């Protein structure tokens, strides 16, 4: 007998595969991945938006229209899948859909997506160095999703497949601060 979690995973896989299929058709696979991450970040940051889109007292069509308005300019396929999730009250699966979408992309294209966060923009030499290092580890081509975050101060943060390596100056300073605070 399937549990709610199994059913939710099945639904998430269907959403992710549908989205990938639509993105491949329009050749916007990576753009959709970035936009999906952005939508997820917006949901986490904007409480009001989340409350409105999850508000059961509003009509599904109204909530869908609000989502399309909030994410205007995003890929049509992504907006379509979001609309279906709103109508089916499955918006809570968005994080899982995002994760599965990346896996589906990686499987479909035979690549591994690594998210790279730095305080300054990467140059081509650094990109090649990262790709070279992790291509050997994964045995696959590496695609980079680059992000800038001045709060890192310096260094680099890498994450892929749920694993994260924090080699930033900010984290090193934090460790130093903790060590100094706890020293007796």
């Amino acid at each position, binding site marked *: 007998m399937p549990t709610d979690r199994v059913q939710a995973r099945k639904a998430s896989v269907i959403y992710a595969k549908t989205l990938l299929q639509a993105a491949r058709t329009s050749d916007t696979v990576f753009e959709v991945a970035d936009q999906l991450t952005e939508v997820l970040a917006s949901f986490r940051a904007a409480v009001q938006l989340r409350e409105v889109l999850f508000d059961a007292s509003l009509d599904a069509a109204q909530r869908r229209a609000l989502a399309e308005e909030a994410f205007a300019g995003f890929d049509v396929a992504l907006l379509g899948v979001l609309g279906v999730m709103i109508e089916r009250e499955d918006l809570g699966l968005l994080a899982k859909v995002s994760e599965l979408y990346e896996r589906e992309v990686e499987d479909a294209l035979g690549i591994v997506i*690594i998210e790279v966060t*730095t*305080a*300054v923009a*990467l*140059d081509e*030499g*650094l990109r090649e*160095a*990262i790709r070279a*290092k*992790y291509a050997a*580890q*994964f045995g696959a081509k590496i695609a980079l999703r680059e992000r800038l975050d*001045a709060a890192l*101060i*310096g*260094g*680099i943060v*890498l*994450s*892929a*497949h*749920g*694993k994260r*390596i924090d*080699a*930033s*100056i*900010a984290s090193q*300073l*934090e460790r*130093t*601060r*903790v060590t*100094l*605070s706890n*020293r*007796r």
Partner: protein
Amino acid sequence: MRKPTTSPVRTWGASLGALRAALSAAVLAVFLATPVLAFASEELAAEPIAAADEASGIGLLIPKLGEWIPMLLGFIILWIVLAKFGWPAFMGMIDKRAATIRDSLEKAELAKLESERLLAEQKAELEEARHLAAQIVADAKAAAEQTRAQITTQAREEAQAMLAKASEAIEIEKKAAIAQLQSSVADLSVAIAGRVIGTELSETQHRAVIERYLAEAGSLNAN
């Protein structure tokens, strides 16, 4: 130890007997002597020198012989009557009175003995009460001393405990203050260091740092 005493009842009885004998002897002597004195007066009255005083002086007081005999007879009769009826009644009354006094004295003696016995008993009870009171006072003093010692010990222990707690609290506060100071210093130092690094690093230096960290970074492949 009590001295043996002569009973007052016996002394009074002896005195009463002696009095009675003396009284009887005196009355008899007066009656026997009275006729002699009367006859002597008669002989003196016969003398010529005293003839002139016959009708006056002592002659007026001395009865004539013819009067004296009936008087004597009358007196004897009176004495016999009194001796027969008056004297026994008088002596009976005296004896009764003596017996009453003797009883009273005996009762007084008994009462005195009883009171002496009671006095002795009271003295003994008083002594016992005094001893008991002294014992109670001693016990109370001992209990008070014990209580004082207990209170003193308890107060000392409480004071020591409070002192220990206060010392502990001070130590904890001191450690907390030091920890807070360390934390503040660490926060400030790190913030300054971060700002300095962020400001001072050029893009080239940033990339050099990234390169170095990348070389040191571990594997991302969890499988």
